[in-house]
Each structure stands twice: as C-alpha cells, then as structure tokens.
C-alpha cells in the first residue's frame, strides 16, 4: 500500500476523488490466504498455470517473431500491446500498483477478479456480496475471450488452435474446498528451524531486477519458465501427496522439510535463512544453485567475478544438481542442464535483416558529401558523390525521414519519424551531438538561408516546430494543415512552401481540398495558405530558380465517383501543382492514357530552371518535365481550361514530359546538385541511389548503400505494396491510399454498384494484424481476403495478386508499425484529465446514477489491448447510403491521428462522434455527460 500512500501525499487533490479506486496488489498478496490445502492450493494452481508465466513467455523467440509480424518494434516485455494480455494491470498507472505487485507474475488473480486492494481482506472476502461490492469480479467466458480471441499473429507463429474457453476454464479451475481455511504461502517459512549465520536468501525476484531483458539473455524469464520455478507449486498436486505417502509421511507436502529440501531449498533452511524479500513460493530459485545472495547481490560486487565468488556466489556443477537430481549423470545431466541454460548472450535468433530503405537526401553545402536518411536502418548514410561510395553511416533515431544542413555545413538535422525527435549531427565528427524533442512523426526538416531557424514538420500532430538553429532551443509551433510532409525554401530565402498529404477536413462527401502553407522565413510566421482544389497527397516541393513559382507533386483523387471509374482512368490521378508567386494555382497530370505516374514522391528542378525531375515510386521512373513547355501551355490556356481541363487531362503530359528515366525500386527523394550536372534519387526498396547525368538525362550510375542482398518475404511484400503494377494502367499502388502505411483521410465508394452506396472511411494499416475482421462492414475475416480477390474486383481492376505475392503483401502489411503513443508513453502516469477520462471510459453508471447496460459501456466493445471486441455493432450511425447498420468496432490505438471518424468519415473530430452522431446514446451512454467530462474522455482516448 506504500505506493498509494505516497500518491495520496503528493497529489491529494487529484487522488481524493479516486479514493475508492482499487489498486493492484499482486498475486502474492492473494497467496497470503489462498494457499495451502485449506484453500484448495489455489495460489499454487495459478503458479503452476501458464498464466503465471505469461510475462516470461514474452522473452521467447516466438514472441519476438509475433511482435515483428505485428509491427511492434519494441521488446515484447516493454510493449503495451503485448503486456495488455501477458500481464495484469498493463493499463494501470504506477500509483495503481502497490509495491507488492510484480508485472513479472504475468496474468495474475487480479486480471480476472479485478484489482484487489479494496476487497482483499479476510473480513470482506468472507462475505461474497461485500467483496463484490468492494470490487471483486467473477470472470465470465467473455472475460477470457478478451485476450484469448483468435489472433492472427499468434496463429501464424505458434500454429495455436482456436481457444476452447470451456476447456481453458477447466484447466485453470481453482475451487475452494467446502469449508475453506485460509493459509498463507509463508506458512512453511514460519515453521523453519532456528537462527542461521551467514548470507541470507534474497529471492529470485531480486536477481531478476538486473538479470532481465534482451541485454541479459532474459535470464530471469528463462528461470520463470523452467520447472524449477514451479517446483514448490507442484507440491500441491495429488501426485506429490502420494509420493509423500509412499515414504510414510503425511500432511501438506509444501510444509514437509523432506519435500522442501529439493522443491524449495531456501524454505527448508528456515525463516532465519531468508530475508523479507524472499518469497517461499519461488521453488528452486537462483540461489538454490548459486548460493544465498545477500552478500554478493550488489551490482558492484557482481561486476567483479572474484569479489562475487568471495561473497558467496557459487558456480553450480553436476554435484550441485545431484543433490536433488540423484542418478542423473553424463548425457542425461548435460541434457537437463541444457534445458535450464540461461546464458547472458544466447545464440542469436534469426531476425529480419535491416534494410537501409533510403528515403531522402541532402547535399552538404560544399558539395562534398551526400547525406541519405535510411529509414529502415535508423541511420544516415554518408556518400561521397565523387567516388560514388558510401563512406560512413551515422546511427540516428527511429525511422529517419529527412535531413537538412545548416548553411555553413557544420550541422545536419535529421527528423526521426518513429521517435518524434530530431537528431543533430556534428558533420565534422559524424556524430549525433543532441536529440531534440519534436512533435508527432516528424517528416520534413529545413534550415533557413541565414541559419537562424530549423523547421520540422510534425506529420502526426499537424504542426511545424521552429527551433533556434544555433542554440537548438525550441521556439514555437506553427499551425500546419493535415499531415505536413515536405518543405522547400525559395531561392531568395524569404519563403518556405510546405506540402500536406491529407486534404483539409471538410464537409461530408465533398471533394478534397489540399493546402500548401507558405511561411515567411524572415519572421517564421505563416503568411498564406494557398489551396489546391480537388487534390490530395501533396508531397514533394521545389522552387523554380527564378522564384516565380514552386512545383509540388500531388494526387487528384476523385472520391465522389465509385472506384469502378478506375477503368476509365480517372479515379486516382497523379501530377504536379504549380504555385505562382502571384497566388495563381495550376494543376497538371503526369499520367498518360495508357500508363499512370503513380506515387509522385518528390520533385527537383535543375539550376538553369529548364527541367523538373519527378520521381514515381510506383513505376520506378523519373519524369523529366520541360518547364518552358509546361509554363507556356499554362499561359496559353483559358482560365476555364486551367481550372477544369488541365488538371484532369491525361493527354497533356506528352506536351511537356520529354523523357522518363528508369531508377531503382521505389524512388522517393530526389536532389539536383547545384552544379547542374547530376541528380540523385533515393531508391527506398533496393537500398541504392540512382545517379542521373543531367546532360544526357540518363541514369549513369547506381550507388549501393550496403543493404542486405537477401530479399525476404516481408521485403518482397513491401515492394509489392509500393508497386503500381497490380492496378489498371498503373494508376496507383497500395501506398497511394496508405502513405506511411497510414491513411489518406478520404472516404471512398469502393463497391461495384457505382451509385454511391456504402462510402467508407479509409483505415490505417498500422498494427492491424490482430484486429480482424477487416473492412468497416466486417466481411473480410483475413488480410488475405482483404488484399486478395476483393482488391482486384473493387480496387485495382486487374488480375489479383498470385498466392505467393498475396502472402508476402499480407505479411508486410502486418509488420507496418504503429508509432508510440505520444500522449502516454508506456508506464507514464496519466494527466489529471486523462485519469478522469479513464474513469468515464470504464464507468458503469451514468451521472444520474442509473446503471449503464453492459453492452452500452465504452469498455465493453472497446476492450484492451486493442480496444476492440472485433465484433459488429449498431451504434446508430447508419446513413441513407449505408447497406447495413452494424459496423466493425474499430481499434482505438493512436486514434488521435486518423481523423475523420466513424465508418464513413462523417465525424471530423472525436468530439463530433458524441456531440453530433450519438443522439440516442447508442454509441455508449454519453448524452448525460457534461462538457468537461467529454473533454476528459477524449483526453483519455488519445492515450490508448
């Protein structure tokens, strides 16, 4: 209870309102009463079950594999998603876990029975009704299915059969005898012999504080999964009692010195031999082999092998084991020893190789080095443009995306999309000297001409961080539009143009409107926000050397027509935007009638202003645009043609696209050297740079960035995801609608009816493996179905992926990671508002005291760790276009970054889900809530 008391002292106001809120006390507190024959050995039954090992199993290679194919980058034992089912209280704050609680105990009593601080007293527990009133829960089959629902990731790796909940419940049944008597796990210790000199047993838990995690070979977890850790609990079995009887002994084996001498040697030595940190239930713990640890457990001692030995650390040998494992010698001994081996450096497990995946590049101001951000290997490759070789690689943060130099070339700034940081590189030493906290998912980064400000585009939080480029202090955030992507500085240094991939949030079923943000680079303020009607996915940007206009890559996605119009070639088109200084906005396509120009990722302009080079990530080409011809065409067009014809005319590109240059696989960023002789293209999916000779407009060289030669199935799938070959006339790739594996913010009419039936909001692909079924109508039970024939029929209008490609594609899709939640890092305390919101999310009664039906509580359908029950529900959101009223329950992880909401995207904000679209309380009982309660609920939702 100490932790709780501390919180009460520190934050009385915050906690006062939650005084009745229970905290997790841990299985061992339950074991203080629920042990022994008088209680049917309930604690031992749990300890002997897989539940008690649920946390430890996350150390297994299989768990890592599951995490990997689920897009979970962190260690499974540190992943909120994994811990959600492999431990108790994963969602709880630190203060909600008493000092007696240990996450290492996995799925404990309180996972099913609720946090126990308020009911776990003998007086209350003897009265079931009182206990229930105090928070004791009695689990149902549904409780089990919250975690034991089929998970594609687990099936894929473990080939585990569908969970039979009845069998499962039978397996963990722990009935108390008719006239139960409470007995403690410490009862054997209390019976121990007299005083003992010398070192004491501290317990394996103390060892586990250091000997854990991948850096230590998960030693503690390895022990927890071994039979040794269950040696004491196994004494509760009938078999143990029979064995005891055969020796002419009776009673409880867990208190028999004869049994304990091998099944819990420390306990056998008596109460005086153990320190309070020792728990008798640990069986054959670390100290059973290595000797009691009180004198050597200190880190300073353990780091000195001789000192540790002198302090009592033993190295077990065959004789050590033979004390209990009699008649085990030779090969048998080696076999058993191998079984419990726990080396600090275990044999490496096969893992997905680190591809480089270069995405953007920048040339040092003196032109001598090319910095290439490698999002796959969390590094920046340094390339010598003269020798065309990689000369160094600088580790940076997670998923680096963009890089920019200061004008003096002494520093480089790298945006790390996954970590929400910016790495500051000292160019001379090629080391990261500082890491800046940015907003959510930083993408583009740029330093102004004076070297005064560093701008960072926060794609997730939809704002622009402005740092002092010299002091590295954060100055302010500027408001962006939706998912700012890249930025370019005008030749005179006065303006910065910012592109955005998502269109502005607008009225339901309206054409997209994309925004460019113009920053006054002298004041670091927003000057203007020109819009591109009908456009979305504005990505690359470049200014013409004259400064008269900027070019932007864009898509023109017609969401008001059904996807069937793809066959006519104009559902998703790709092109360029021209933003003139005078405020004029023009759009042209780069698609041609028989072949599209999908995924126009970036654009660069030659120093003489004559050509623009545009990368097509979906067809592995660079288009060379003659800018004189392009601007002449625009000038000669009528205002009506500029507004309606040019933006949609696939016949026009032949007038200004003079050449296509093949590149490596999936070209992204492109850069033209200031000398005008070469351009460099980052080929994301073959780990290379294509060098373009601008004189001949040919690909003259390939620079290998040193990625793995092997193409894994996942990498193959990634290539398919970004390749437009599967779509009719190569109009788009999977990545078109799912940039960064996320959303494009649009609502599509993707069915074949062609009359606007069932428009649905695009959903993220991040971390979705275990959230089946897919599709808002829930008709696709697997990704294979989602991405297979259905994709062909409704989206791509070509032959479906062959089985091996489909399998690879699905594998890749599942590995797309979900970025860490920026509103609540794992283990962080809630803010007061978030804490209040959690109470509302889990509430069972409305403000007026009436009980909320179970089916109408937030937590019922949105249960952790994905916050979805993966079932269809009617929440009253059916519109006249919809075929059905029931829709798939979406998962809520990182829900803050995927507006708009509801099945058809009609709610622009989380608030609108309840203030506008829940008039009858069908989507949870919410209309009784005050505005501040709704605000709190939303603050909590953003932490999921």
């Amino acid at each position, binding site marked *: 209870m100490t932790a709780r008391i501390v919180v009460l002292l520190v934050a009385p106001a915050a906690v006062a309102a939650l005084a009745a809120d229970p905290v997790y006390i841990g299985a061992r507190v339950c074991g203080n009463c629920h042990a022994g024959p008088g209680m049917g050995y309930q604690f031992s039954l749990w300890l002997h079950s897989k539940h008690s090992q649920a946390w430890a199993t996350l150390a297994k290679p299989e768990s890592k594999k599951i995490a990997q194919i689920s897009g979970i980058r962190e260690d499974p034992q540190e992943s909120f998603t994994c811990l959600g089912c492999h431990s108790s209280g994963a969602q709880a704050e630190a203060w909600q876990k008493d000092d007696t609680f240990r996450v290492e105990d996995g799925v404990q009593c309180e996972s099913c029975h609720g946090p126990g601080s308020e009911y776990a007293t003998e007086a209350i527990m003897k009265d079931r009704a009182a206990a229930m009133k105090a928070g004791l829960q009695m689990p149902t089959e549904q409780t089990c299915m919250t975690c034991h629902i089929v998970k594609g990731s687990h099936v894929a790796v473990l080939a585990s059969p569908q969970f039979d909940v009845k069998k499962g419940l039978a397996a963990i049944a722990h009935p108390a005898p008719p006239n139960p008597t409470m007995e403690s796990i410490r009862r054997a210790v209390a019976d121990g012999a007299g005083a003992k000199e010398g070192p004491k047993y501290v317990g394996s838990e103390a060892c586990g504080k250091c000997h854990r995690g991948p850096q230590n070979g998960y030693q503690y977890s390895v022990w927890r999964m071994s039979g040794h850790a269950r040696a004491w609990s196994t004494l509760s079995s009938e078999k143990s009692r029979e064995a005891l009887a055969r020796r002419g002994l009776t009673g409880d084996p867990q208190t028999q010195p004869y049994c304990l001498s091998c099944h819990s040697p420390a306990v056998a030595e008596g109460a005086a031999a153990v320190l309070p940190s020792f728990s008798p239930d640990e069986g054959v713990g670390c100290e059973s082999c290595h000797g009691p640890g009180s004198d050597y457990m200190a880190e300073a001692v353990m780091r000195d092998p001789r000192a540790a030995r002198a302090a009592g650390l033993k190295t077990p040998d065959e004789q050590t084991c033979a004390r209990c494992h009699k008649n085990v010698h030779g090969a048998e001994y080696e076999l058993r020893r191998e079984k419990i081996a726990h080396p600090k450096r275990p044999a490496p497990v096969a893992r997905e190789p680190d591809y480089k995946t270069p995405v953007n590049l920048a040339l040092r101001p003196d032109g001598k080095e090319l910095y290439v951000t490698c999002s796959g290997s969390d590094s920046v490759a340094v390339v010598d443009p003269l020798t065309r070789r990689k000369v160094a690689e600088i580790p940076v943060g997670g998923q680096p995306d963009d890089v920019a130099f200061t004008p003096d070339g002494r520093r480089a700034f790298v945006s790390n999309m996954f970590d929400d940081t910016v790495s500051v590189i000292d160019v001379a030493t090629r080391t990261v000297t500082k890491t800046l906290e940015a*907003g959510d998912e930083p993408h583009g980064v740029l330093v102004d001409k004076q070297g005064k400000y560093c701008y960072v585009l926060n794609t997730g*939080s939809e*704002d622009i961080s402005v740092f002092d480029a010299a002091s590295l202090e954060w*100055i*302010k*955030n*500027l*408001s962006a*539009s939706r998912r700012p992507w890249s930025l370019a500085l005008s030749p005179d240094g006065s303006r910065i143009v910012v592109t955005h991939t998502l269109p502005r949030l607008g009225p339901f079923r309206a054409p997209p409107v994309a*925004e460019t*943000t*113009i920053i006054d680079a002298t*004041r670091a*303020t*927003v*000057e*203007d*926000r020109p819009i591109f009607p009908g456009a979305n996915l504005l990505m690359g940007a470049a200014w013409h050397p004259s400064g008269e206009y900027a070019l932007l890559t864009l898509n023109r996605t017609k969401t008001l027509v059904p996807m069937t119009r793809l066959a006519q070639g104009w559902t998703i088109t790709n092109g360029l935007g021209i933003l003139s200084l005078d405020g004029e906005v023009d759009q042209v396509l780069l698609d041609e009638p028989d072949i599209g120009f999908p995924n126009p990722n970036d654009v660069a302009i030659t120093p003489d202003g004559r050509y623009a080079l545009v990368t097509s990530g979906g067809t592995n080409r660079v288009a060379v645009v003659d800018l004189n011809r392009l601007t002449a065409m625009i000038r000669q067009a009528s205002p009506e043609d500029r507004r309606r014809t040019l933006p949609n005319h696939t016949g026009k590109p032949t007038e200004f696209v003079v050449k296509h240059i093949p590149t490596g696989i999936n070209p992204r960023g492109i850069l033209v050297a200031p000398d005008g002789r070469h351009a460099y293209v980052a080929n994301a999916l073959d780990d290379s740079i294509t060098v373009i000779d601008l004189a001949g407009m040919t690909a003259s060289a390939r620079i290998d960035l040193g990625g793995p030669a092997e193409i894994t199935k996942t990498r193959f799938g990634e290539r398919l995801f970004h390749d437009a070959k599967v779509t009719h006339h190569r109009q788009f790739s999977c990545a078109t609608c799912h940039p960064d594996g996320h959303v494009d913010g649009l609502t599509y009419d993707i069915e074949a009816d062609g009359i606007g039936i069932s428009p649905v909001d695009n959903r993220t692909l991040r971390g979705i493996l275990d959230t089946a079924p897919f599709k808002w109508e829930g008709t696709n039970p697997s990704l294979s179905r989602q991405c297979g024939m259905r994709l062909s029929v409704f989206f791509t209008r070509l032959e479906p992926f062959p089985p091996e490609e489909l399998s690879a594609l699905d594998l890749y899709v599942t590995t797309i990671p979900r970025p860490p939640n920026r509103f609540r890092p794992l283990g962080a305390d809630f*803010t007061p*508002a978030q804490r209040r919101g959690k109470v509302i999310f889990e509430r069972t009664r409305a403000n007026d005291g009436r009980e909320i039906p179970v089916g109408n509580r937030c937590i019922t359908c949105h249960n952790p760790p994905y916050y979805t029950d993966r079932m269809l529900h009617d929440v009253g959101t059916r519109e006249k276009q919809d075929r059905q009223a029931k829709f798939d329950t979406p998962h809520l992880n990182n829900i803050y970054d995927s507006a708009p909401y509801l099945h058809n995207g009609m709610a*622009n*904000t989380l*608030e*609108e889900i309840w*203030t*506008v679209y829940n008039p009858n309380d069908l989507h949870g009982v919410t209309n009784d809530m005050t*505005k*501040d309660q*709704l*605000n709190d609920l*939303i*603050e909590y939702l953003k932490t999921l």
Partner: protein
Amino acid sequence: MIRRIAFTLPLLAALLLPARGEDLPYVYTKWKHFTTEDGLPNDHIFAVRADGPRIWVGTEDGLAMIDKRTGKIRSWREKDGLPWKVVTAIDVDPKTGDVWLGLFGGGLARFSGGRFDHYHQLNSGLVNDVVYGVAVENDNIWAATTAGASRYNTVTKEWTIFTEKNAPMEEIWNYAVSYADDKVYLGVWGSGVLEYDLKTGKWKEYLDPDGEMEIDLYRDDGIAHVITTGVSYVDKILWVSSYFGASRYDGRNWRVFYNQDSGLPSDFENNMKARSGNEAWYCTDKGLGAIMDFKTNTWVAYSRDPKTLRGKALVTRDKTVLEEIDLETGVPHSFMIAVDFDGNDVWVGTAKGLGHGIGEGYYPGLRTRPSIVAQGR
C-alpha cells in the same frame, strides 16, 4: 474649431479654463472614423486589436483588417470563410502571428495565413459557443464564455474547462479575459475578477465585499461590483471595469471610481484596457473615459453629441472641469465597446464605427502645458 470655440463658448466656459501652464494630460484631438463606407463589414464594432501595422476589427457581421501601411481595409464575412459573423473578441499570438477570434454564438476561430479554423462546442473541447473574450497566454488560448472559461493548448491540443467545479466561480458567465505577468485574469459576471497564477495553478478571487448590491457601502474595499466586464493588469496594477463603476488595485489598496466623483462618463462600463499603472481607458455607454493620471484623478472623457455630431473631450480632476474641448471630429459614437492601444495611437470600437485617435505628441501622465482651449485650438 478655433473660431467655433472662441465664438460659441460663453464666458462661463472660459472661467473653467485652467490657468496657463497647469499640469494637464494629453488629449486626443485628432480622430479618424472608419465605417462601412470605408470598407468595414459592419458599423457595430465589438472588438479591436492592434498588431503592428495591422488593426483587427471585430464587428457584428464580419472581421476586418486595416493595413496602416497601405490604408487598405480587408474584410471577411461568412461567405469568405469566417465561421460565424459576430466577432466579439480578438487577440494575436505574438509568436505565430495567428489571430484568435471570439465569436458570439459561434465559438472560437483561429485565423492563420488566411485560413479560419473553427472550434466550437460540438467539434472541440470549447465549453460554450458564446464567447465574450479571448486572450493568448504563451501557447495557450483562453476563451471567456457564457458557461465558463476554456483553455486550449496549441501544442498539446488539450482543452481545459474552468467552471464552478474547479475555480471559485459563483457564476460561470465569463465576460473578459486577459493575460499578463504569468497571470490570467477573468472578469466574471457575478464573480468579480479571478486571477489564475500559471506558476502555482491556483486561483485568487477579487470581489466586492458589498456583494451584488448596486450601492457601495464601504468605498475602496474591493472592486466596485462583482459584475465585471473588463480586466487589465499592467505595471503590477489591476484595473477593472464593471456595470457599476471602475476599480484599481495596487496589491495593497483598492481605489474605486464612479461617475459622481471622477471623470468616468458613466458607471456602466462595457470594457476597459489599461496602458500603464497610471493610465486606463474605460468604454462606457456614455463615452470613453480615460484616467490619464491616477494620482491626481485626472481624466479625459471623449464623447459625441448625437445632434451636432461633434466630438467633445472633457478634462477633469476630481470632477472639476479643467478643459472642455470641442472637436469637429471626435469619437464616432458615445456607446463604447472596445479599445486598444497602438503605440501613441488609440483605437476605439463603438456602436457606430471605429475610431482612430492619433496620438501625435502623446505623453503619459501630466505635463505642464497651455490649455488647448486657451491656445485657441
């Protein structure tokens, strides 16, 4: 004007004139008017905010911006993207240049780079759409609404609501909000002034010990009345306006001003803004009252004669008229709603147009000068 004063003011008026060389306040004698004829979207001016060369004007039907460099006026109505037509409050984020608008019945809007972002009680955490006041505090935007105060953090995007649940608001009808020196001040209808200390997160209330009584039983014992309409904290001095008198607090002593014993044109004040610890301007229903020197209780009251349409500046000290200056062009109207300072200039929003007082030769406090009237101006 010279001749007019010379010929129309009788001898009595001349007797009121102070002797030459008396300490007198600065008087704004040059005024310019802006109305719909000049390009404002509406003549009912509810808010005005000076931002360098830009003067932002909130009206009953639209937003306007006067560019002092070019003299041009741009305006935005609902058809131009303004989310709601009635603009009752304006503040500018000094870091980003974004303009925040309080919309009477329409919530809150951010005007940034030509884009309006609309925040209202259905699509955001704003507590209520009837917004009377808005203030930028660091990265936070505060809105005074009819159902409490809202705070929006532009970095974390978190909304916080302040009502009777978490602030000492006996009423939740917030009329005004301002920010200075790590403190946010709320003028609350019926709850006086609430001070929120950013460093401690604690509230402090300033009340009228006489409660809601419209008479002041004990003078200078607190704010004039708990129905407050404006609050301004400058030079560690708190200035307050209410429907029943004005107040000033120096951290130790209160001083209350009434029409009966000061130059305040009326006790019914719609708004106020302080320029310093010594000078504050009150928008009343009968004119604009500026206390120009606190120590001597010297005021200048600006008004407009509805019949002659001429302006008047009345200089008083302890209710004694020092100067009565007739102005061919004075303030646009005597019903004052908003005021802001722009260097030496002053801008006032009235029920009939915007006034721009040109502060040529402005000086703070008092200065020995000849009477303007005596000078024959």
